[in-house]
């Protein structure tokens, strides 16, 4: 790896290097922020889906239980 770095053109970390590093870091930072926002969205959707699945299951159980109750009343 160090040999690979030596083969590269000069990577000056003087005044110019700081600006170049700044530009590329800004780009990567924007990308990371975007991906983090999307990850948060995905988590929220997952939570909502889990919640909906729970309510759907409760509803099915409620509907299954309801006819039995009615049968009990009529008897």
């Amino acid at each position, binding site marked *: 790896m160090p040999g690979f770095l030596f083969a590269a053109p000069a990577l000056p970390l003087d*005044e110019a290097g700081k600006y170049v590093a700044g530009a590329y870091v800004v780009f990567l930072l*924007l990308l990371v922020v975007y991906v983090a926002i999307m990850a948060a969205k995905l988590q929220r959707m997952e939570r*909502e889906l889990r919640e909906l699945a729970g309510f*759907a299951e409760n509803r099915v159980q409620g509907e299954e239980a309801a006819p039995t109750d009615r049968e009990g009343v009529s008897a």
Partner: protein
Amino acid sequence: MYGKGLRPLSIATVAMIAVAFSLVFFYAPLDADQGFIQKIFYLHVPLAITALVGFVVGAVFAILHLRSGDRRWDAYSYVSIHMSVIFGVAVLITGAIWAKASWGHWWVWDEPTLVSFLIVFLMYATYYPFRYAIEDRDRQARYASVFAIVAGAFVPLNFMAVRLAQSLVHPRVFATANGGLPGSMMFTFLVCLAAVALLWVTLVKLELTAKSASGQLKRLRRALDAPASGGGSPRIAPEVS
């Protein structure tokens, strides 16, 4: 529906960006005039080209929406513009950094290239309040499409006007009489352009997938929220904000 092929596309994008950045720092020669600062060119210019093309792509999708009435095209148009605005933020910040390093100023108001891009960016920044000020979904989609078409037509016109204008300090690199880029720089630039364009496509696909999943969830909630056939079923959970 939109998520199909997202994983290989994401892997290809990461690989392409890695290759592009490697070429920038380990292959492309230093610029004789600007030196190391010129490395920002390989990021700033592809981002600007992709953002501007993305705005035009958004206009094309808007035309398809108005022609067909299919809401899918409106979603494509919205996401294309949304992604291009994000890329526009990156263009403005990287451009300002480059300007400070080269010219000693973060911004030069006399420079047509800078100001024209800012105008385009601000114009598209009004797309969001304009779109979401309309409550009716169909009208919102229609009006947003008209906006996208008009603004999309403005982008190439604006680009041509800037090319014809007398530039003060902003360099003209492509298609100029007094020279362009040498081969190795051009190759690196094209790889960077392909990488940034691929990133735009991947992020558009990701955003569409998320929007589609969110829409499906809303549909599911509405279906579950409807009264059961037996009647008297309790309402489902409140919407998660």
